[in-house]
């Protein structure tokens, strides 16, 4: 119970730090939201526009000290003049900020709320990332075990060279090459842009699957390389350990040795990767979604960076951070399932 409390406290502190970093990034950006909001207006110097700018500043607390701005950004209380009555506001808009699920609006398109937009984009990115993670694990775990069991065989050498190649090949280059090779200018096997055909916007699952093949391959191949390398090292180390030797000496069947003694133990380090693979995939989605023009969160983040929608950028940073924390937590749970020492708190 106490460890649980401590852990959740620590998680809260980390979350706070995460938001703080996002906030610092926001403040690093050139100009402030008010200037960005009215950047498109031609007559910034005229009286009305200047007045609107001042009003926007005071409504969004941009004229207040930095810590007040941070608390306002964090929520859940809205600290602006229209904020909660307990804090001296008029009470017309009591809640606001991140903790109230409010990520603000885009500067140049004030009718677009950021939170639902990010959710909408996530519904594209997350399935892609999860499918890629599944594919990566489905391929990399058997590959790594196989390599680790047959060290120094021809298969091991060649497949290791291949995974090294995959580890070193930059994603955007592979994506461009695949587009060039399999797209309309090459073999014309697969569609290379978007998730749906322009000609048949409601083209069913087959169309969607054909569009998703290349992005999923590009997202997953680097993780396959990393996971299989780790799995090979773990398998090799355990396969040459004393308890495996002892099991074999006791006459345990070879299949049982491999499955129960080697694979199960080698899976423990691989589960620590679960927490890292998801963030890699989300980071990689920035590139993959840009190259393949998929309207996911990575592309949204990049577009926001290019359009200087820094509030949207900060929202993406925070969302991916929370997802990463969730991934780390998941790998903790998995590990304690697989490794009784972790479960009992011995390690």
């Amino acid at each position: 119970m106490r460890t649980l409390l401590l852990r959740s406290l620590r998680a809260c502190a980390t979350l706070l730090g995460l938001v703080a970093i996002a906030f610092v990034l926001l403040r690093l950006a050139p100009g402030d939201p008010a200037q960005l909001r009215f950047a498109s207006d031609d007559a910034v110097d005229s009286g009305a526009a200047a007045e609107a700018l001042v009003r926007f500043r005071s409504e969004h607390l941009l004229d207040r000290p930095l810590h007040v701005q941070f608390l306002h950004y964090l929520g859940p209380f809205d600290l602006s003049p229209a904020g909660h009555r307990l804090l001296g506001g008029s009470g017309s808009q009591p809640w606001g900020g991140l903790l109230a699920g409010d990520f603000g609006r885009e500067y140049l398109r004030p009718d677009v709320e950021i939170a639902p937009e990010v959710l909408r984009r996530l519904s594209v990115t997350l399935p892609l990332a999860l499918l890629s993670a599944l594919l990566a694990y489905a391929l990399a775990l058997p590959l790594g075990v196989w390599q680790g069991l047959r060290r120094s065989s021809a298969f091991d050498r060649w497949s290791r060279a291949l995974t090294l190649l995959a580890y070193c090949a930059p994603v955007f280059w592979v994506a461009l090459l695949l587009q060039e090779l399999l797209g309309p200018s090459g073999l014309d096997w697969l569609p290379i842009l978007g998730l749906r055909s322009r000609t048949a916007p409601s083209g069913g699952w087959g169309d969607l699957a054909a569009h998703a093949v290349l992005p999923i391959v590009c997202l997953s191949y680097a993780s396959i390389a990393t996971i299989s390398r780790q799995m090979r090292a773990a398998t090799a180390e355990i396969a040459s350990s004393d308890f495996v030797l002892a099991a074999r000496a006791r006459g345990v069947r070879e299949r049982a040795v491999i499955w129960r003694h080697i694979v199960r133990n080698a899976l423990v380090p691989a589960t620590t990767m679960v927490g890292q693979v998801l963030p890699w995939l989300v980071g990689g989605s920035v590139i993959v979604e840009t190259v393949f023009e998929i309207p996911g969160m990575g592309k949204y983040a990049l577009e926001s960076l290019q359009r200087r929608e820094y509030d949207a950028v900060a929202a993406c940073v925070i969302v991916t951070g929370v997802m990463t924390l969730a991934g780390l937590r998941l790998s903790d749970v998995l590990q304690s399932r697989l490794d009784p020492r972790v479960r009992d708190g011995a390690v």
Partner: protein
Amino acid sequence: MERFDAAVAIPGAWSRWRAQRGVRFALSVLALVISSAIFAPFLASARPYTLLAVDRGAYETSLAELEPLLRNWNARLLDAAAAKAALRDDDPRSVHAAWETHAALLREVRAVELRLSTLRRYASSERAAQVPLDALDLRLRGWTDKVHAGELDDLGPASEVVASAAALRNSHRPRDGSSDGMRLRERRSFPLLADLSFCEWLAALAWLAALPAFALRARARGWIALGVLAVLLASLCAAAFRAPSGLSTREVKLGVATGAIELASAWYPPIPFGPDETRMSEAARPPTWASAAEIDERGGYVRGPRAAQSTLELVPSARPVAVLPAEPSLNSPVRHLLGTDALGRDVLARVLWGGRASLAVGLLSASGVLFLGVLVGALAGYLRGAFDAFARALIAILQSFPPFFLMVTAAAIGAERAASASLQPLAWVTLVIVAVGWTGIARLVRAEALRVRELDYVRAVRALGYSQGRIFFRHVLPNVLTPALAAAAFVAISALLAESSVSFLGFGVRLPDPSWGALLQEARAGSLAWLIAAPGLSILVTCLALAWLGDAARDALDPRESR
């Protein structure tokens, strides 16, 4: 006593590392890539190494401009004298005016001196030719001294000087075809070498010094290699954090082609194209060894229209292609070995120059990550307490982001602030990669330091009463380096990939400066197939060599794991 002695173990690992299969090959590949980046200006440039020529265009312009400049100078002189007369100490405006006219005066002097030096350089060495120039020069020098001293009143009659400059225009007219005039001298110059910055010289010389050191069979070799690496990193650092030297242009080649430069001899680099030498008439040309690249005299492709090469870009219309001096002939297979991009720039030259930015950022940020990670990790593990708690919290927070995502965001958002603080985009990207990437190494090293600080020999030196600093630097730090060394190559790979990815997205090295990632961004925008292969292959080969070395280092440092 269980003692891991770095002084013994690391050289042992070094020889084990060297003995492994493929390490020598990977080292040579890496050396080749780094050499090609360092010597890129010597390999691909539009400027010749040496040039023996008369710059007739410059001579004629100088001759024509000398007299008007002197007239102008005379007018400025009167202004300055007037401003000096009106100067009152209590009137800031008059002080400012006097200062302005003085500065203008000095600018004019410099302009005149430049023209005069060009004339002296190329004018015939006969006495009759040089004497009037010398006299003018002497006169000018006397004036400049007086202007510097602020004695504007007794400069003597200026009209006389203007008249003598006017006379020069007749007496020093260059010989033109058969007509009589002055024979100009050919002079030697070094356009390419003059273009190199101090940092580039330093890096090139350090690298040259390193090559024989690798061939030596001496114990000192390791130290020499380390020293060279340090000089290299320092010059890279200096190069990344200062303004870039201007990329070379094709002025020499154009001058020769138009006849403004009368050439005696010139020695060009093997690839006589600069990385930013645009030529629209030859835009979007496939590699010239391919039959699809053949061009006829009118500028059209022999096999089919030019439009077939590109789908998205504007279709380059057929235009006669000018072949400048020193360039391979129009349909020579080596003219553009890797083709040209949408602006007609030579891709091979751009890939060679692009390696400079990519490798500089990759190597610099990798060493930054290693330095920061080892320092913070070792201190946190050794000191424990508040510093450890702080470092752990920081690491936990930084690791709760997808690292690449954070890098892109920080690189993009901070770029303008960094530019206004006169940081180069390169330097900013390096800082971002270091700031985001140090946590992994720090965690590894911290765990090792936690283990080492409880070992017997550390307890022993503590019992002996050695100072904290001595224990840390002499006994703990060398012994926690192992995990960092084992991971060093992979840190370099991820830094290299991060830089190229950030540049690919358009937030790193800004176009038109080439870097491998930025080149791929251009390739994507132009959808020209032959632009894709070379930059990506360069990244891949560099990373593969590093990964091979890293795997070997991991095995060598950890004798337990047999291959």
